[in-house]
């Protein structure tokens, strides 16, 4: 036990002795995590909750176009700006706005007419930035609803609507009575309805079609009322990345120790190989957990990242990941021939693992097959576990699977490491 504790203490001491290691492990994840968090929406969270700019070119300037415009303006997710056709095209092309809508002249009249007769339908031109497909589709959907409401309201109660109904009735005169009777009846009823609302101004209600439902949206990120905090993901992801780098250093350090002949001292003492390896695993796990604690403490103080889920779950995920990292380090030490040769390959492997874990780009943006395939990547479980315990606000039972997966990977790596370790010193 004396030897075990002394070995653990030595590892931790050497880690803090090494300025480069400390900066890489504590400062780098905080800096890069802050940057990613900021870029992925952290900046707009408080001031402006991610409004999408929409340029509107109103060439009609009539009742219908104004109604559409006011509905767009009322939408909190949009920032509507009036523009001219030329400016609008220019701005979209330059990527300053994702989408521009052009309402053509006479839109209201043509649209109302088109509602009752198969007459030519007016065109609303939409210009969109191809790199913002998602926003564009969203705005097109909203626009359809708003136009429908504005035009139908005009058709059923506005001046344009009355004129259109009368006009349509006149046109029906030339059609044989048998065919036109049902439509004629409907239009006459509509005309009478229009007259009654006209004379009864006080009782006038907004008529027209409206979208027959309302969307009630709530972000299911965490407990009710808490917001998604992009810093939670970015700090978790970067902590994972740099802790894995620390794991590489563990492996390389062991290879260097062997090269320096320190293993001879260890091997000449009455010390079991198990003590030697497990002390390194424990010290690496402790360092990994300390890094996670510091990184998330910083995220909490500066960016308000909270452990919205289970704290024991969070600690378990951190411990599981630390253990996995230390086993990964031992694996590098077991498979690496020289420190130099081991370094290059393990950095590449680590970067791939981090990429597939979703630390850079969240894994829910991966294609389906990749989301399933990356379950074979140990760091993916750490990322999912941290996400779950932080911004998703899940309970401890949701940490069980990630922790089990991490421990399983640690066992696999550790077993291979012990099996392949070249104990004999050279």
């Amino acid at each position, binding site marked *: 036990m004396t030897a075990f504790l002394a070995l653990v203490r*030595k590892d931790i001491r050497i880690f803090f002795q090494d300025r480069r290691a400390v900066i890489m492990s504590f400062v780098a994840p905080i800096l890069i995590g802050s940057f990613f968090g900021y870029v992925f929406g952290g900046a707009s969270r408080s001031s402006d909750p991610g409004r999408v700019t929409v340029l509107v070119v109103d060439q009609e300037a009539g009742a219908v176009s104004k109604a559409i415009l006011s509905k767009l303006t009322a939408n909190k997710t949009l920032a509507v700006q009036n523009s001219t056709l030329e400016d609008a095209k220019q701005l979209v092309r330059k990527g300053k706005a994702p989408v521009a809508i052009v309402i053509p002249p006479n839109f209201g009249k043509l649209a109302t007419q088109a509602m009752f007769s198969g007459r030519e339908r007016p065109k609303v031109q939409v210009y969109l930035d191809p790199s913002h497909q998602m926003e564009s589709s969203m705005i097109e959907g909203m626009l359809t609803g708003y136009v429908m409401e504005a035009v139908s309201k005009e058709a059923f109660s506005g001046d344009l609507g009355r004129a259109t109904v009368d006009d349509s009735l006149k046109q029906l005169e030339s059609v044989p009575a048998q065919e036109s009777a049902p439509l004629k009846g409907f239009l006459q009823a509509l005309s009478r309805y229009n007259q009654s609302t006209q004379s009864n101004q006080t009782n006038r209600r907004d008529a027209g079609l409206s979208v027959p439902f309302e969307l009630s949206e709530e972000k299911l990120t965490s407990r009710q009322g808490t917001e998604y905090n992009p810093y939670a993901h970015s700090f978790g992801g970067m902590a994972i990345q740099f802790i894995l780098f620390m794991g590489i250093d563990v492996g390389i350090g062991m290879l260097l120790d062997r090269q320096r002949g320190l293993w*001879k001292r260890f091997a000449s003492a009455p010390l079991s190989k198990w003590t030697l390896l497990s002390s390194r695993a424990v010290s690496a796990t402790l360092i990994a957990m300390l890094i996670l604690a510091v990184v998330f403490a910083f995220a909490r103080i500066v960016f308000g990242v909270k452990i919205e889920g289970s704290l024991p779950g969070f600690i378990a995920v951190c411990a599981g990941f630390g253990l996995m990292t230390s086993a990964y380090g031992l694996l590098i030490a077991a498979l690496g021939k020289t420190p130099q040769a081991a370094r290059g390959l393990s950095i590449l492997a680590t970067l791939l693992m981090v990429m597939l874990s979703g630390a850079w780009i969240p894994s829910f943006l991966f294609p389906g097959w990749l989301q399933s395939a990356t379950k074979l990547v140990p760091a993916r479980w750490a990322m999912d576990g941290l996400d779950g315990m932080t911004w998703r606000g899940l309970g401890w039972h949701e940490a069980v699977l990630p922790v089990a997966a991490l421990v399983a990977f640690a066992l696999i790596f550790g077993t291979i490491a012990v099996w392949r370790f070249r104990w004999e010193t050279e």
Partner: protein
Amino acid sequence: MLQAQGLKKAYGKLVAVDGISFEVNKGETIGLLGPNGAGKTTTVSMIAGLLAPDAGQVLIDGKPVTGDTNPVKRKIGLVPQDLALYDELPALANLELFAALYDISGAKASKAIDAALELVGLRDRAKDKVATFSGGMKRRLNLAAALLHDPSVLLLDEPTVGVDPQSRNAIFDNLETLKSRGKTLVYTTHYMEEAERLCDRIVIVDHGRVVANDTLAGLYRRLPATNKLLIDLVDGSKLSDPSALKAVPGVQSAELIGNRLSVWLKDLSDGAPGVLAWLATGGHPFDHVSSEAPNLETVFLTLTGRSLRDS
């Protein structure tokens, strides 16, 4: 105290140690001498339990050195050929760690560390990082690290390699102190002078085998000609046939190069007067006479046909 019996070790096809056996008695210092690649380090590693021999065994006080946690290992102190120290830690922290490996901590450890540092003269540098030490100081600390658990057998693998003469002397003084305290030393080197100065007995290894195992005096006795007499003649050209000297009793052979005559004798005191008289009476005046003492270098050369240093 220490017995190596029929040790064998091969790295793939290369047989590094090919059946080495020797014994070291308590309090004795033996020198393990051999050129580069002779198998010295491999032998020492097997004795220290770092390497499992392919064949043979090592006994300390009659008990085999096998297994990682064998308590017999406490009797062995290894001073590795490499500087096996953590450069980034202070000397004290290094020693505390190495003491802890033998389950020594607290006051007992402080005492042992103090004594070891005192011996190697590094007490005032205990708190400094090893990285700030000179090569000689690192060597001395490397030695101190092996003494903390008070082993009775010290295995020293070239403890003075790459060290300036002053530090080398310091290390030698340390080793002589340890010897006087009754420690058993196995001293690996390819420096003759070191082995001659320190060792009671020399085991010469070459190509993984023991080629000689004897005291210094015993080794010298094996030389076909133990003594060499060097005579500078006034005029060497007058001595046309130096082999005529063989007629003098005790002379084994003679050789003349320029004015310098070399005469190999069975025994210096028996043979020298006859040679000098033979020259004087034969009209070969000389102006300088000296003799060359035998050394391990010549022993090695004679035994292996190779020079120790640059083979």
